């Protein structure tokens, strides 16, 4: 479940930090920026990019690497296509989340809103990352970089979130598009994702809906 949550977290973080401020942020500056960000999200609620991910797990001796495409729509819809020899497709429409493995013809279905721990954390995350209450859930540390971008460190300040994520670092380029996310989990696992070719075109709603192919075996790892 934590792995699933991190996948969502890393994905949503892309939407969260197209920051446009260039100066070290004081509290009033941050508040002003949050308002601008909300306006920006209203204007361009979609985002798409290609990604390359390196995942270190305490279970594995060496990290796993993967590539693919990712697409989002505020506040909670996303699509993640992993390519390579073991591809997968992750789609969420905000109500349920599917992961489909074409090689195994197997799909996992997660219904959101039924697991208190997961949903509370997700609610905290989405509420926080909608920028209205982000500092209620996270301590933010924003450091300007020489390249003109920013390094934003989010540390959860609520213990239920701390059990799921230890730290999320988001690196923005000078255009304030997300360049990299670096997610650290409580047991030390780490997911580093680099993004390229960002686009803010509209994405059709159908991209966030999933219908299992005929013959696919459907699992419900957290129950129906």
């Amino acid at each position, binding site marked *: *479940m934590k*792995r*699933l949550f991190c*996948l969502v977290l890393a994905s949503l973080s892309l939407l969260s930090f197209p920051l446009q401020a260039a100066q070290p942020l004081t509290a009033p500056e941050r508040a002003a920026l949050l308002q601008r960000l909300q306006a920006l999200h209203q204007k361009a609620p979609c985002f798409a990019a290609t990604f390359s991910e390196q995942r270190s*797990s*305490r*279970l*594995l*001796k*060496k990290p*796993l690497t*993967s590539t693919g495409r990712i697409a989002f729509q505020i506040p909670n819809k996303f699509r993640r296509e*992993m390519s*390579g*020899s*073991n*591809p*997968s497709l*992750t789609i969420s429409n905000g109500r349920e989340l599917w*992961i489909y*493995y074409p*090689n*195994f013809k197997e799909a*996992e279905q997660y219904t959101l809103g039924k697991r208190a721990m997961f949903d509370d954390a997700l609610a905290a995350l989405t509420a926080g990352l909608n920028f209205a209450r982000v500092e209620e859930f996270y301590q933010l540390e924003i450091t300007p970089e020489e390249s003109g971008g920013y390094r934003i460190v989010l540390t959860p*300040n*609520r*213990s*239920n979130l701390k*059990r799921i994520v230890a730290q999320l670092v988001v690196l923005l380029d000078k255009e304030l598009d997300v360049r990299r996310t670096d997610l650290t989990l409580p047991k030390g696992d780490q997911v580093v994702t680099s993004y390229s070719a960002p686009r803010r075109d509209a994405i059709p709603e159908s991209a966030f809906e999933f219908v299992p192919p005929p013959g696919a075996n459907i*699992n419900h*790892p957290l129950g129906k």
Partner: protein
Amino acid sequence: MLAAMALFVAVCVAIIVTRGRVDSDVLNLLPQRFDSVRALKVYDREFTQAREITFALWDEAHATDLDGFAEYFGDALRKEPWVVRVMDRSPMDAPEGTRELQTLAIPLLLDQSAPAFAQTLQKLAPEAIAKRFAMKRTEMEAGSPKAEMELNLDPLGIVAPALTPFSASFSAENTRPLAAADGTLRVVIAVSTQTSLDAETCRATLAKVDDFKARVRAGWKSGPAPEILVTGRTAYVGELSDGMKHDVLATILGSVLLVSGVFYVGFRRVRPLLAILLVLLLCCLGAVAAGALLFSKLNVVTMGLCSILVGLGVDFGMLLYGTYQTQRNCGLDHPAATTASVGQLGRGILFGASTTAAAFVSLLLSESPGFAQLGVLIGIGILIAAALMMTLFFVFTGSTHKPGGQDLIFTATQSYLDRLFRAPKPIVYGALGLLVLLTAFAAAPVGNVRFDVNPQSLEPPNSHAGFALRKIKEKLAKGKAEPVLAIIQGRDAADFHAQWSAFQTQCLAAKERGEIANISTPAAFAFSPQRLEENLARLHAFDAAASRTALKEALDANGFDAAPFQSAFDLLDAFANLGRGDRAALDWRRTLPENSSWRFVIDRFLSNAPNIGAAYITPNQTIGAPAEQKALRRALDTPGAAPLFTGWSYVMADLVPWSQTKLVELSIAMVLFNIALLVFMYRAVAPLAVLMLSLGLSIGAMIAGLKITGLPLNLFNVLSFPLVLGVGVDYGIYVILAVRQRDRARHAMASIVKPVMLSGLTTIAGFGSLGWANHPALSSLGLVCALGVACCLFSTLFFILPAYLWKGYR
């Protein structure tokens, strides 16, 4: 005489010191013939859960990070030397929770059916292990969270299927929620090192808890600390036993002061007062020593013994002294006055002591061990008091007589008597009218006597433990019915398994039919010895070493680090040991660490003694009546299983009809006893009828008083009715004795009415002083008795006395 007294005191003190033990268990007040009460005692005695200390961290204002505080609190609590284990989160989230789950799964694996266990062994075959880890590696590469979850929780893929019956039986999340949905309360549960639930140990543990609370609050630097509430058996017993000291002191001091005050106001003499107190002290010592000899432990309600004895026993002294004083005022010397007063009142005192003692001894029929004790001891005490007051008392009063100055009470009494002798009729009618009016009000459907059926009525007012428990219920189980426990005791493991299997099937069917809301049973933990033996036999042929090698090679081949999979190696090692005949892995109590959170789950369902388990049934509504009990029992009636149902609401549904029946039974017994005794004494129907009418109207007035004051009846103070009948009749006895002084009736009246009034007041004071007790059984009993005695005193002075004079009864 003094030497004999000193010897008596020494013997009594020796008995009390060497044999006196106090029992603070409220369960011992309840009648033991009910299955529900016996089952509750079994639960209390055998289940560790009954010994858990439950902390509620409460932050209604959301002023702090409650989750953060709970984590900090739990971590600090774990470090306390008096704490064995702590549960502040789901066992799955505990640091070693996942690893310990493998330990927990081993007996469950061995309890699988033959086909399921065969599948388990197939999954442990070397080629199956190699295939599984290759697959999981591929799934992880594809980004599967499920694969990672499985590898974390159940690397070999055999634990999850074995846990299926475990989750079907109960889930820790559902049965023991640790956080309120509104985020204002977190629960942390701890098991302490205390092995006994006696008052001393509980008080000592509570002192450590209080110290810890202060330290942990002071150490929290991230905002205001939430309120820390504490409940559980330890907290209740500690609180009650602390209250017992207060109760003993407050009630004895209260009654002695009140009684002394009344005596002094009435007689303005110190030496006779001291003489009475000395005799009462001897009575109390004698009664307590008798209690220590007769009973292994003195129950909590016997703390009221001394106050009640003081209030009742002083009556005899006061009556005798009042008469004695009148005789001295008439010129008799000390021996003559003593003889005269004992002669005049001796018979009455013996009858009075007998009726009062009988009233209290009738509590033996109550089936409540606590009240039976109290009744027997007061019965003994009253008889001792009557005997000593007629003998020893006048030794201590001394022979000097000082004619008193102006005695306002005596003057008022005389004035009242003058009026009575002149025109008793209006007073009879007035008093009768008032008493009938009150009785009519008692019987009328206007207002009602509150009968408190809430278990809360058994706990002290302002109980911290009670408040904590109710707050937890309010926050975590709002709207849910009170659970009912079903306790099954098996003859042996096979019987235990058979009973739980059958009972669980029946419970699930009842749930399906909508007859109960929910059920959590230990059926998954009630293993079949036959299945265990069969599966152990299959393990003899299992090559654990080959599986171990295959696991190591599979991990290497697929790039997994071996360390996180140690639990899988441990599981294979356990299978190897079981195959060799070492059965240690089947006993959780040996394999699970003492601080494991999983023990909380097990302790909730299984007792420390073998083959006793408890299920938790959530009925559709809280059981409140015998009919609902019956419906539940019918719904869960299981051939081949003999569960005992209990739980506080369930017990109350048994006890309320019991107490109401006892009220009627004991009252009838008391009335019959009074009639039998008084027929012998009165030898006339009319005065006896007046006395009985007066008693009946007094009870009516008492009920009206309960309606007016709102004083509730509860399980225990209903027993006050027979006591009031037994005590209240005494005043009528003294009055008839005075009336019978043929030629000296007026003189005898003068010497008796004042002491009767004063002794009534002291009895009210004695019972009333119990109102200061923390223990609800004691305080409510005292207050209701005081009200009843007040009604009896009123009807004696204003109805019986004038009626006798009016009609000239002898």
